[in-house]
C-alpha cells in the first residue's frame, strides 16, 4: 500500500485513488519533428525501471488530479528530478 500525498487532503491511503497512468512527455510540434519521433510519442508509454512520474486521481476523496514520482522497483514515492522538463 502506498500513502499518496494529496495537495488538498494530505497523505491518504492508495485505495482512495484511481491510477491515471504515467505522465506522457510533452507533445512535440508535429511540423518540427521527424516521423519516427512522432510515432514514438504516440505509441511509447514511459515504463522505466526506477522513478516514473504518474497521474493519480483522488476519486474517493476531494477529486483532485495529482502527479507523483514512484519508484517502480520499490513502490516508494520519491523526489522527482525537479522542474527539468
Amino acid at each position, binding site marked *: 500500500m502506498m500513502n499518496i500525498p494529496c495537495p*488538498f*487532503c*494530505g497523505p*491518504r*491511503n492508495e*485505495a*482512495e485513488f484511481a491510477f491515471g497512468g504515467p505522465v506522457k512527455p510533452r507533445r512535440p510540434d508535429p511540423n518540427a519533428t521527424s516521423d519516427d519521433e512522432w510515432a514514438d510519442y504516440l505509441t511509447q508509454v514511459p515504463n522505466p525501471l526506477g522513478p516514473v512520474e504518474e497521474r493519480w486521481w483522488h*476519486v*474517493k*476523496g*476531494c*477529486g*483532485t488530479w495529482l502527479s507523483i514520482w514512484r519508484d517502480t522497483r520499490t513502490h516508494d514515492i520519491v523526489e522527482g528530478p525537479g522542474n527539468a522538463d
Partner: protein
Amino acid sequence: MTPVVKGSDPDMPYDARIDRLPIYALFDLKGPKEALAAWSKDTLEFPNGPSRLKRRGSAALCHIGPNRWLLRDDLQNEAALSETLRPQDAPAEISIVRVSDTQTFFRITGPDALEVMSIGCTLDLHATVFGPDAVSYTEFFGIKALVLRCEGGFECAVEQSFGNMIEDFLTRAMA
C-alpha cells in the same frame, strides 16, 4: 432502521450506537469562494481551510475539495436555502446544485464509536488528527463516503443507493 444499541445485547463487541438519519438538505457548491460568498449575499460562513467545516445553527458548510463546498442543514430549511442560493440563476463561474436526496447519513456514537468507524475507514480519526471541525470524503467499507464528527461520535454519508448495504455492514460489525 431500528437503532443498533449496545445495551440491547450484552454480547455486542462494541459499546456504540448506530442510527440511520433522516434526509438532510444538501447543496453542492462549486466555484471561487469569493464568487460564492457574493452570490449568497454573505449568508454563507466559510470554514478556515481544506477538510474543515463551519457550523452555524443547524447548518454546516464543509470544505470538501478545491473550490468545492457542501452545505448541510435540516431538511425543513431546504426551501429557505433554495430561495437564498437561487441555484437556477447562479452565474456561470459558480455552480449550486441541490443534492439533498443523493446521500444517506449514519451516526455512530458512544465510547467505541472510533473502533466501529475504524472497521470501515482507513483515515486516522483520532481526535488529535481529526478534530471537531474536520470533514473529509474518504473510503468507508470500500466506497466513497463523507465523514465528520458529531456530538459523541461520527457521522458518515454514502451515496443513497449504498444506504442499505452500509446499514447491513454496520449492523454486522455490531453483532
